[in-house]
């Protein structure tokens, strides 16, 4: 199966644990995959407030929380749900083809 255009293959769907946060890189850009209730989300891996790896963070109610200062970002949209971050987290489109998770190279717009 060919990789969808503008996407990169990241991991097999079955290899991501439910409730897991899995770090990966695209061209040295740190990102994360999150699997929740069977759905897979792809977001930037670095908090928009101060440098912190969100792979070390925590999930609660479809929000990913920064491990250092509690900034919260909506998994679906990257919208800030709690300060101190005020800039949204870039989110990426996900496609699952033949059991493989593909993530868009470019962030979703707006």
């Amino acid at each position, binding site marked *: 199966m060919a990789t969808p255009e503008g996407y990169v293959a990241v991991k097999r769907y079955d290899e991501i644990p439910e409730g897991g946060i899995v770090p990966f890189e695209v061209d040295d850009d740190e990102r994360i995959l999150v699997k929740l209730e069977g759905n897979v989300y792809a977001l930037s891996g670095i908090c928009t*407030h*101060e440098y912190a790896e969100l792979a*070390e*963070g*925590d999930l*609660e109610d479809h929000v990913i*929380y920064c*491990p*250092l*200062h*509690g900034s919260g970002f909506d998994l679906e949209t990257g919208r800030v749900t*709690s*300060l*101190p971050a*005020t800039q949204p987290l870039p989110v990426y489109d996900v496609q699952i083809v033949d059991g493989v998770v593909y993530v868009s190279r470019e962030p979703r717009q707006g």
Partner: protein
Amino acid sequence: MADPRPCVILGGGVAAYGAAEALRAAGYDGPVTLVSAEPVVPYDRPALSKAFLQGQKTAEEILLKPPEHYQRLGIELRLGQRATAVDLDRRELVLEPGERLPFAVLLIATGAEPVRLRLPGFDLPGVRYLRSLADAQALREDLSRAERVLVVGCGFIGAEVAASARMLGKQVTVVDPLPVPLAGPLGEEVGGILAEVHRRHGIELRLGQKVAELRGHRSVEEAVLESGERIACDLVVVGVGVRPAVALFQGSGLQIENGILVDEHCATGVPGVYAAGDVANWWHPAIGRRLRVEHFDNAAQQGAAAARAIAGDPQPYAPVPYFWSDQFDLNLQYAGYPGPWDQVVLRGDKAAPSVTAFYLRQGVVEAVVTINRPRELRPGRRLVEAQARVDPAVLADPSTDLRALAQPARQAE
């Protein structure tokens, strides 16, 4: 239909920011003016003692949002304008140098101001306090020239400034009257962990001691402790706590008692007048007592809660207070109510340190602190939120899955 009531937000910290955002998000479409004595839009104040002081971030980089953002929200900014008087009957503020600003709704978000020490020598040049961006800019400038820094008071600001100064390569001494720093808010065991981290990084601690006076000719040169010890220093930073900034409202008709008294909707006893953030002493309905919290997260959220009440959608403000502190490579996070508690239960490795502490009162989890263990913060917070009773031995057992423990607590809410 446009809400015709002009609303004034008095203050320029994160409570004001949270209110500005939430007013518009909640559909308030009347005129809104933000009045701040500081000449800058709301910024990330916690960064002042850390990323800003260490030179990792500029003033522009710590703004919560750029000035244009307020224009987009349709919020008028009156920056660098101090309010000198208020008349709640006539519904107007007097701003320097004499302009009158009418309001229908007033949100007081004036925050807090540092307690000044009135001891001999504390008026010398080279003695600094840290609250505002201007304070931080002056301190950063002084730090670039200083070699020996004395920090008076080892609360969160003192401890963070000491760590930042040490990270900049300065010789740093910290004096605090308590035998264990931060024992008040965090207890002796956790305070002791922080003290050890500071010692390990080469900070000289003078605990259980007080400064009697500062001496110097053109500027500060040494401190004399009550014990008689003399400590050479060319910069002194005082961090001995803050007081709610209520001076403008003395005699205004508002009830003032350790801040401005408000109810669970951030409303004062005067209709249309609200308070939020460090200045507000509010009734917390979930725990049935008053709280005044001096932290960023509360200010942001309470500002937003007040805004929703102003916009006609009041919801009881009943958060689990949260704050963090970063010192060297240590990250501390606190979720919970202030003490008193009667038992502190630790799990993890104190030496590393990688520790979670639970604070119990009569068996109920009142607060949780994580030190370099961020994944235990939110499950711990859920236990606090549920006012859970958990066997201390279970909490202390590192094999206990806090997440699983927190789940039934949450369902029982």
